[in-house]
Structure formats: structure tokens, C-alpha cells
């Protein structure tokens, strides 16, 4: 059987399996958010948020469950309004090309913010996110008590925590990654970013309005906004548009990223108007809350920071600020002046134009040469050398951390190719190679050659002596105790699961200890309906690390789940799975 035949045969895989993956892929492509599970560099609040519901399977289950609770859609009624079917009109067709001369009295000053951010308008008092009180604490990186504003927050009566973004935002992207992110992709012209804008929220759209505007997509909040200023081009706009911005909805919110209230302002890299689409998307990366402080326009990020190497005047912070609901304070992680972001955006645009004029083969196995040829880097750009590599390896100790640090030193390796295993090479000089190979395991080697090609010296710099949390010999036993075995729809189902290392030897796993747990699925024995059961958060032990579970060691986990209102009646089994160990035995019954 030829490889092509196998490939074509795989086209016939189960449609249900394909549908699940397709939905996630579509959601990812629409939202433009990147999901990195590694959260080593994030603040503890973020880890806590992630730790609470981080395993993506579980989170998808939560979303799935929520959607099932609500018959597939997530209702919300902002401002106490009832659901309406009429979507607000949006004029996204020509706001960029026309009417840029009309000035808004409260935004004209922001048209050229890069040179003088202190001259920006101070008319943001209408926003409900009065964060001015927190400015004095901005240098304090410890988590602060949320500041309660004088005005009653807009959405104070609604908040249910649902993490829509499975793993939240990962470590800041490198400059090259941002450039790649903003480079137009011919596959997705509707997601080409147009410019950096300052917008003011008019209202969050209701579920029905969102559905009318964006179709099936219901996991991001759509806002009717007034686009005030094209910060990238330095033009006043003053147009109305629908913008997809925060994850979740008004009722079901991402922790730390509450919905915007009427009057709130934020910056956003918006997509270009696209025929047939009545809304614009705000890239998560450039979304900053706008707050006037002491005559300056300050920006606060909600976790999606731009690397401080690229924004040297930015400040890392860790503040909780009540904006639109006391139940879900905005969690700010970076603070900077508006002008700094605008300058950065404009630099990016110049580089994007420069890069677009040169050929760059992103799939070339020789990224360094490609980058050099296309002008992305200069010939004197730093290269990873042995001393730096050794220093990074000594400091980090984990393969993925090392990769990340290597990429920071030399973003474009001399060689990179993936054929079943990934091989990346850095060549400090003509006769030296630092090579990284990883598949099941990872290894970093250094080789020095003589001019005739013979090996002069070689050294293994790093080697993982374990798989990434996988051990084919791992064996676990699961003991289950369930709250009861018969349920009505809407009942809470609780399972206490004990997991014992029965392999007779220590089991090693890498990552955040709070994420170590079996995956639990409740599935209908007849019709295949299944629900991923969320777990109760386990306290975060801090940074990622390498952990051992001793032979015979027992760990307990609690899983809770509300039987959905539309759950088919009948017998369900619990599928508990970790590595190659599983338990399928425990049955519950949902009453008709």
C-alpha cells in the first residue's frame, strides 16, 4: 500500500471525529488567538486561572456542556435588555476610505499620538473602568485588591466563569512571530489586519444580534463600537462598526477579561472590511484598555502582552481592576503609554512593507539564509554560540524552555526541518554546529569540524532522559466513588477518583503539577454522546517542573458535572484515561 493511498484512505475517517477537530480549527482561525499551554512566564493569577480549568479537553467539555445547557447558544441580555433579533447596522464598507476628515471633538487630539501622548483627550470619564486610582500602584507587581469604582459596574449582576481560550495567552510573541502574524495570508484575506485603532464601545450585542451578524460564532463578544481614531495612519475616523473582541459573552466570561461596557475605550488591530462580513475582528495582541491618567493616555493589557524587548518603556504589572463587573475584575499585566504602542505599530508596518518587497520562503530548511536574503536580519545579527547555548541550558534545564531561549538569541536557525522528528541547527561559525533533535525525546549536541570535514570535537549538551510525560510502561489503577448512580437532568454529578501508580517504579511527568490528572469522559453506552467532565482545580504548586509519582503513590481528584438538560436518557459509562491506563467500568443512569 503506497503512502498516498494511506493518506487518501484517511480521508474516510469518522465524520464525528473530523467535525470536532474542524470546529476547533475554525474557531482558532476565526479568533486569531494562539493557544500555548506552557505558561511558565506568566503571573500567578494567570496560572491560577488556567489551573482552574486548563486541560483543553476539559475546557472544550465545559464549553460543550455550557452550549448544551443552553441548547447550543449562550444567551445574555446586556443592560437588562431582552433579546432582540435585529442586529445593529454597521458601516464597515467604507470607513477607512471616506469620512476621515470629520473630527470628533473628543478624539481629534489622539490623531497623532506617537509624538505627544500627553496631548490626548481626557474625555474618558464616561467609561466605567475608572482605573485612575490604581496608577499609583502600578510599580507594585504584587496582586492588588480590586478597586471598586464609584459608579455601579454595567454588568454586575451577571458572571459565570468559562475559559473560552483554553490555555490563555502564552509567553509574549517574538518580534518575528508578530511580523508573521500580521503578514497577510492569501488563504484568509478576510483576516488581514488593517490598522491600529482606538475604539469606544457603544454596546455589547445580544446573542441574537451576534448570531445575525456573525452566524454560528458565539464564543466571542461582538460590540457595536465607535471607531474614533486610526492610530496607525494618524487619522480621525468617527465611524460605527461591529467588532469582535473579548472572549466569552457578557454572561459567560473569561476570568480576568470581562466584557467592555458602554463608553469603555480600547485599542485594537482591526481587520479590513470584507465583503459579506458585517463585523471586524480585533486581534488579541494589540487590545489594550485605554485609561487617562494625569494627562497621559495609558494602556493596560489583559494578559496578551507584547514582549518588553519590543516595548522597552512598558511596565510589567499585576493589578486587578473592576471595570464592568465586580465579579470578574480585569487583570492587567502590562502598562504603557499609547504613543509607545503606536510607535511599535508603525515600525511593524514599515517592516511588513519591507518584507513584502522581498521573497521569503517560510518553508525553507535554511531560515537564516532566507532571513538574510530578504533583509529580515542584518549580516551582523547575533548568532547562537556555544557559550550562550551552555548558559541557557544550565539556567533552563527543560527542553522547551531551551528552545524558546535559543529562538530569542537567534530567531532564524541555520537549518530547520521536520520529518517525523524535528531537527534544528545553529551554526555559530563555518565549522561549528549546535543541533537539536526531538521527537519522542530531545537531544542537543555540539560538533566542531576541521576544514576537511572531519569531526574535531563533539559534546552532548543536553538530553532528555524521559518522554514528555509519557511512559509506555506506566500503569495506573483508578478507584472511583460516585455521588450516586441515578440522576435527573440538571443534577450535579460528582466523581472522586483515586489514581495509584501501579507500575512499581517512579512515574515522571513534566509541566505544571496542577495539570496532572486523568481525563474523565462520561459517554452514553448506546448513542455515543459524550461529555468531558471538568475537574476541581488542584492548587498550583508554582512554576512548571519535573515531578515524580512514587510507586504505590495515590492521588485524589474530584470531578464535577451538571447533567445537561438535553442529555439523552439511558446508561452512561465513565471513561477514565491517563497514558495507557484506563477504566471504563463505572456506570450511571440518567432518568428519562
Amino acid at each position, binding site marked *: *500500500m503506497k*503512502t*498516498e*493511498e*494511506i*493518506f*487518501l*484512505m*484517511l*480521508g*474516510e*475517517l*469518522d*465524520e464525528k*471525529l*473530523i*467535525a*470536532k*477537530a*474542524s470546529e*476547533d*480549527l*475554525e474557531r*482558532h*482561525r476565526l479568533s486569531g488567538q*494562539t*493557544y*500555548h*499551554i*506552557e505558561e511558565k512566564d506568566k503571573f500567578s493569577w494567570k496560572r491560577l486561572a488556567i489551573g482552574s480549568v486548563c*486541560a*483543553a*479537553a476539559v475546557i*472544550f*467539555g465545559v464549553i460543550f456542556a455550557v452550549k448544551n445547557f443552553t441548547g447550543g447558544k449562550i444567551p445574555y441580555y446586556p443592560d437588562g435588555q431582552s433579546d432582540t433579533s435585529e442586529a445593529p447596522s454597521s458601516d464597515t464598507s467604507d470607513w477607512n476610505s471616506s469620512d476621515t476628515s470629520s473630527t470628533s471633538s473628543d478624539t481629534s487630539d489622539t490623531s497623532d499620538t506617537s509624538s505627544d501622548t500627553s496631548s490626548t483627550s481626557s474625555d474618558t470619564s464616561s467609561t466605567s473602568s475608572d482605573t485612575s486610582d490604581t496608577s499609583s500602584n502600578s510599580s507594585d507587581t504584587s496582586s492588588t485588591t480590586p478597586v471598586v469604582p464609584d459608579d455601579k459596574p454595567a454588568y454586575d449582576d451577571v458572571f459565570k466563569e468559562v475559559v473560552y481560550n*483554553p*490555555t490563555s495567552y502564552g509567553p509574549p510573541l517574538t518580534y518575528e512571530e508578530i511580523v508573521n502574524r500580521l503578514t497577510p495570508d492569501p*488563504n*484568509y484575506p*478576510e483576516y488581514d489586519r488593517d490598522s491600529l485603532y482606538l475604539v469606544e464601545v457603544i454596546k455589547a450585542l445580544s446573542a441574537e444580534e451576534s448570531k445575525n451578524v456573525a452566524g454560528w460564532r458565539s464564543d466571542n463578544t461582538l460590540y457595536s463600537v465607535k471607531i474614533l481614531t486610526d492610530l496607525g495612519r494618524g487619522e480621525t475616523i468617527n465611524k460605527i462598526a461591529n467588532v469582535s473582541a473579548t472572549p466569552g459573552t457578557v454572561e459567560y466570561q473569561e476570568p480576568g477579561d470581562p466584557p467592555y461596557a458602554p463608553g469603555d475605550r480600547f485599542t485594537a488591530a482591526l481587520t479590513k472590511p470584507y465583503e*459579506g462580513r458585517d463585523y471586524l475582528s480585533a486581534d488579541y495582541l494589540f487590545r489594550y484598555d485605554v485609561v487617562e491618567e494625569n494627562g497621559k493616555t495609558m494602556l493596560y493589557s489583559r494578559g496578551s502582552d507584547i514582549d518588553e524587548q519590543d516595548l522597552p518603556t512598558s511596565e510589567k504589572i499585576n493589578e486587578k481592576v473592576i471595570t464592568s463587573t465586580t465579579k470578574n475584575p480585569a487583570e492587567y499585566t502590562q502598562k504603557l503609554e499609547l504613543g509607545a504602542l503606536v510607535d511599535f505599530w508603525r515600525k511593524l508596518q514599515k517592516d511588513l512593507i519591507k518584507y513584502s518587497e522581498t521573497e521569503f520562503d517560510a*518553508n525553507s530548511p535554511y531560515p537564516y539564509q532566507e532571513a538574510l536574503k530578504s533583509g529580515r536580519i542584518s549580516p551582523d545579527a547575533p548568532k547562537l554560540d556555544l557559550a550562550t547555548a551552555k548558559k541557557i541550558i544550565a539556567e533552563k534545564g527543560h*527542553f*522547551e524552555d531551551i*528552545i524558546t531561549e535559543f529562538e530569542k538569541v537567534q530567531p532564524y536557525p541555520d537549518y530547520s526541518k*521536520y*520529518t*517525523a*522528528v*524535528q531537527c534544528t541547527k545553529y551554526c555559530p561559525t563555518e565549522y561549528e554546529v549546535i543541533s537539536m533533535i*526531538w*521527537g*519522542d525525546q530531545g537531544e542537543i549536541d555540539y560538533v566542531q569540524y576541521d576544514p576537511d570535514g572531519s569531526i574535531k570535537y563533539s559534546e552532548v549538551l543536553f538530553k532528555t532522559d524521559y*518522554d*514528555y510525560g*509519557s511512559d509506555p510502561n506506566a500503569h495506573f489503577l483508578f478507584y472511583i466513588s460516585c455521588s450516586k448512580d441515578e440522576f435527573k437532568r440538571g443534577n450535579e454529578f460528582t466523581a472522586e477518583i483515586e489514581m495509584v501508580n501501579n507500575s512499581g517504579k517512579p512515574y515522571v511527568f513534566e509541566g505544571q503539577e496542577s495539570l496532572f490528572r486523568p*481525563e474523565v*469522559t462520561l459517554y452514553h453506552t448506546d448513542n455515543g454522546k459524550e461529555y*468531558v467532565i471538568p475537574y476541581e482545580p488542584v492548587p498550583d504548586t508554582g512554576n512548571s517542573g519535573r515531578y515524580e509519582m512514587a510507586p504505590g503513590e495515590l492521588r485524589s481528584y474530584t470531578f464535577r458535572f451538571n447533567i445537561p438538560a438535553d442529555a439523552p436518557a439511558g446508561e452512561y459509562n465513565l471513561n477514565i*484515561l491517563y497514558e495507557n491506563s484506563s477504566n471504563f467500568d463505572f456506570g450511571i443512569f440518567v432518568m428519562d
Partner: protein
Amino acid sequence: MEDKQIVELFWERNESALSEVSQKYGRFGKAIANNIVGNYTDAEDCFNDVLLTVWNTIPPNKPDDLRAYIGKIVRRSAINTFRKETAQKRGGKEIQPIFDELAEFSSDYSVEAVAEQHEIIAEINTYLKTLSERKQKVFILRYWHCCEVSEISAVTGYSEANVYSILTRERKKLLDYLRKRGVLN
């Protein structure tokens, strides 16, 4: 428009079905094709061929899942284009590494009978269902959607290194499983 309505349009021989498919699944189909053939122009041509195939096959077919139906046709059409391109020494974007990975499953043994292929697919489906949903998605995104590892990482939340690791491990386990089940030599 709902899939069911689009399929009905095809059955009515209403040409607006084509524009509905283009609007709803154009991006999806072209993305798969682009990953296989490696350039957008060919991917667009591919998708145009796909529209014709869909027009010619519905009716008599009445697919329950239009997206999967179109995806399958896109893959076939794109592979044909890829063959032509390979003959002209123009490589695909992501498909070659995928072929390299799937080469582990290749053999001299010929599986031509449709029934036999169905048996293998049924076993692969059974195996995939034993995996966690997240790992299923990694597999499907790689070998059905032909996604790059970086995109799989972004969608599933696994790091790229873990995606590599999962793919390598699951291929090995699947191969063992298929051999044990006697459907593959």
C-alpha cells in the same frame, strides 16, 4: 445557510448551491488544498474542480455532513494536483512531511478491495476513539486537515514539541494496533 438547505439546492439543480458552498466552505477547502499543493493559485483551481465534482455527485449523494464530504473531495483533488506538481519538481507545502510520517504504514501489500480499506478505516476509527479527544484532534488536524504542527499546537494548546511527540507516539501505537488486529502487515 444550513448544510441541509444547501444539499437541497444541489438536488434542485439550483446553481446558487455552488456560491453557498463557496461562501461557507471555500476558505476551509482552500486551506486544506493549499497545505497539500503548496500554493494558493493551485489551491483555488483545486477548489473550483471540487465544486464541479460536488455538483456532479449531489445528487445522487445526499451527504449528512457537507463539510466532511467536501473535505474528502478536496483532499483527492489536491493530491492529484500534487502528483502533477511533483512530476514538475514543485513540492507541496506540508504534504511531504505528512507523507514521510505515513510512510511507516506503507508496505508492498496492496489494499485495493474497497471492503478491505473500509476494514482498516474502521479499525483506525476504533483506535482513535480510545484516545482522549485532544489527541484525536491532533491526529485529525495533521492527517485529515494537513495542518502544520505549529497550527495544531495553536489549536489544541499542546506545545509544538508535544505535538511532534504525540504524533510520533500515536503513529507507532496505531501501527501496532493495526498489526495486532490483522488488518495491516
